[in-house]
């Protein structure tokens, strides 16, 4: 007994996804895209934050309107369980025996109190693969710190590095630790699955989401830790490129701002740019860095009289890295993203149609289709309880009466 199987490289792989918001659910989304059967378990009382932050369908807030929730949960089956209720814990135990992989992101220690942590679950299923993913990891003096990826960005050092030297940190955008973390978790889970299939051995993965972001800061960490210099935020400055920055462009109708990013990495690129903008083509990187304010001012004057699209095309044609700072409307009209079929429309029971991102890679032999939009609250409760666990109507009524489902 099980739910209808997906198609793709992970067809037949069963995942119990108890994680929430972005870092964890993103992993299950990918696995569902590639054919895994993913049951997303949600608390009926503690609302998933992804459901209450936008972007919302039609700009109207609502727990079934969130494009973010839809983007990270598409392709999954939805079940509500209040794990504080013993009957719900029993259902969860049975589902974890059904599953190949359990993903969770409770504060460290919470599942242990319900005897639903890896130590307990692997006794029921020795070859279980389990991911426990929190901001700072399962152990350590600060493992109880509460927070979302926005707090993670502070704790991972990345927030201190986004912004201007004369001001408080000005970024990064959103819960940054949620972005690298799923890549590390997915890769490790797929390695664990491969290992289990060969050896029959179970695997437990303790992820500190902040440590994933630290991998992307590794050069700065190694530098300082070994007695070198301390990296601090420096705007858009780059020690090996000049000019390197964001420059204002002519405003298209209806916009209040328009920018282009330009990064000149080599002397040859500078000569091409100098030719276009009538600057001194002979300057080396060192000489350009010494004249950075005047170069930036002249370049800004040149870009200001042109549209961002024109600057992008002119500079790219000359072999210089440049791109307009895309708005989300620009992204919707980006011919490159369209070429990759990056935005995908799915029929949706409430909205008629919804839109999600495609996967972050194109596989030449195993193209994917997302089978269904993200589940509404408890959308598949009955189907999961009947088809996966074999409950009948009377069992489900009794379960509901216990408060396990709502």
């Amino acid at each position, binding site marked *: 007994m099980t739910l209808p199987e997906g198609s793709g490289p992970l067809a037949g792989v069963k995942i119990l996804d108890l994680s929430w918001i972005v870092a964890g659910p993103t992993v299950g989304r990918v696995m569902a895209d590639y054919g895994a059967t993913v049951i997303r378990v949600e608390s009926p009382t503690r609302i998933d934050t992804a459901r209450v932050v936008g972007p919302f369908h039609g700009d109207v807030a609502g727990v079934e309107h969130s494009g973010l929730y839809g983007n990270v949960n598409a392709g999954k089956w939805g079940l509500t369980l209040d794990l504080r209720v013993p009957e719900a814990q029993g259902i969860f135990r049975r589902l974890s025996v059904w599953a190949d992989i359990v993903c969770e992101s409770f504060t460290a220690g919470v599942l242990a109190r319900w005897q639903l942590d890896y130590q307990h679950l692997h006794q029921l299923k020795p070859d279980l693969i389990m991911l426990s993913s929190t901001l700072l990891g399962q152990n350590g003096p*600060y493992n109880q710190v509460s927070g979302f990826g926005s707090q993670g960005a502070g704790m991972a050092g990345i927030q201190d590095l986004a912004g201007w030297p004369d001001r408080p940190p000005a*970024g990064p955008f959103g819960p940054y630790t949620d972005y690298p973390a799923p890549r590390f978790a997915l*890769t490790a889970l797929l390695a664990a699955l491969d290992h289990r299939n060969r050896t029959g051995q179970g695997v437990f993965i303790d992820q500190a989401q902040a440590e994933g972001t630290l991998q992307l800061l*590794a050069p700065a960490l190694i530098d300082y830790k070994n007695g070198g210099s301390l990296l601090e935020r420096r705007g858009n400055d780059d020690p090996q490129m000049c000019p390197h920055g*964001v420059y204002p462009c002519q405003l298209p109708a209806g916009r209040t701002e328009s920018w282009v990013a330009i990064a000149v990495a080599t002397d040859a690129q500078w000569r091409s740019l100098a030719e276009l903008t009538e600057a001194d083509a002979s300057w080396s990187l060192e000489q350009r860095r010494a004249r950075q304010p005047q170069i930036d001012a002249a370049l800004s004057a040149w870009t200001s009289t042109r549209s961002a699209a024109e600057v992008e095309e002119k500079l790219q044609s000359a072999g210089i890295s440049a791109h307009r700072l895309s708005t*989300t409307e620009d992204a919707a009209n980006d011919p490159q993203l369209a070429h990759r079929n990056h935005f995908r429309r799915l029929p949706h029971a409430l909205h008629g149609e919804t839109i999600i991102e495609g996967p972050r*890679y194109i596989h030449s032999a195993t193209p994917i289709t997302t089978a269904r939009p993200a589940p509404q609250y408890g959308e598949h409760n009955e189907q999961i309880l009947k088809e996966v666990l074999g409950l009948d109507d009377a069992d489900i009524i009794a379960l509901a009466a216990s408060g396990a489902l709502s």
Partner: protein
Amino acid sequence: MLSPYRVLDLTDERGVLAGQMLADLGADVIQIEPPDGSSGRGVAPFFAERPDESIYWAAYTRGKRGITCDLETERGRELLLRLLETADFLIESADVGRMTELQLDFETLRERFPQLIYTSISAFGQTGPKARYVGSDLAIWAAGTPLLMTGDDDRAPVRVSQPQAWGHAAGDAAGGSMLALHARHQSGRGQHVDVSAQVSAAQATLGQVLAHQLGAVEPERYGGGIKIRGQAIRGTADVADGYIVLLMGPGPAVGHFANHAVQWLVDIGAVEPALLEENFVTYADRVASGQADAALFPRLQETMREQVATRTKQEMLEISIAYDLLLVPVLTIADLSVSPQLEQRGFWRELEHADGRQVTYPGPPLNIVVDGEPFGYSHRPPPALGQHNAEIYGELGLTDAEIAQLRSEGVI
């Protein structure tokens, strides 16, 4: 876990983390560089005591073996083909079209190596109108949309000072390669995995990249905070020795943290105990219906800012843990280098470089237990240029004389 598999890593500074992620999980990853070294060896920062040695390159080649091979030469390409007989994965990040010129592209190799998983990392993807665009960290961040969302609203958008875009793409290359491995288990065949850093960067938008198409408003940048329809909440607050993340708000998702903050403020005598009667989970609804004071929450925020301003990051972290506040320090690289949390997690590891120097590295970001035992991460330092030439070409069956010949011809 990945010990049965071999990866030939042809990446330069663009995507060099991908192979390391697989190496950390146990794969035999061989970094292949031109005889005069990868362009990645020229990327800042550099070791203070060895100004010719790139920390960037060392950071992302830790855990790999390293050889040189001149793919511009026929002899070098032959060597690569012999290595491919032993490999499961090839990862490359050359300019789009370059591998085709070298006749080392996926289409050319697939017949001879039908099981090969061939992963390409590029700024915009292998095909399409922008495939030949020149990529860079800044341009990719711009094209993926997070750049416009980041920064102060009265200045130009701003990036992270340690470049990020290729790291995100590398993470996707590792995951995409593993998906292809599972596909190979099913079909017996390898395939091409085409990673676009632009698409990878779009993940760093919290789904906002979809805003326009969903009919939602364009996101606006407001420091590390939030700005929606002109309503702005600053993301950080000043403390005595730096900043903390303070995104306090009412509402169902975070209101209970505001209630906890009231408890702390009452305990230190900063607000009247009567404020404990207020419930910030339901506050917004009650403001809307006229049952609660709209000025109350802004006053609470102001009081919080005044109280945290005289305390240190460390004091506020301890208070945050004790009271369960949604509040953490903005740690600097210097703070992280002495973090007790990272220390206790065994995050750092000392690796001995080929020249005998002990260098401290961040370890992998996952603590893994396999069949009840801690997973044995490799402690292999980053390879010096061509360090494993004799070892790896020897494994291929080349004699010392043949290796010496290749060396004298400049192929390796």
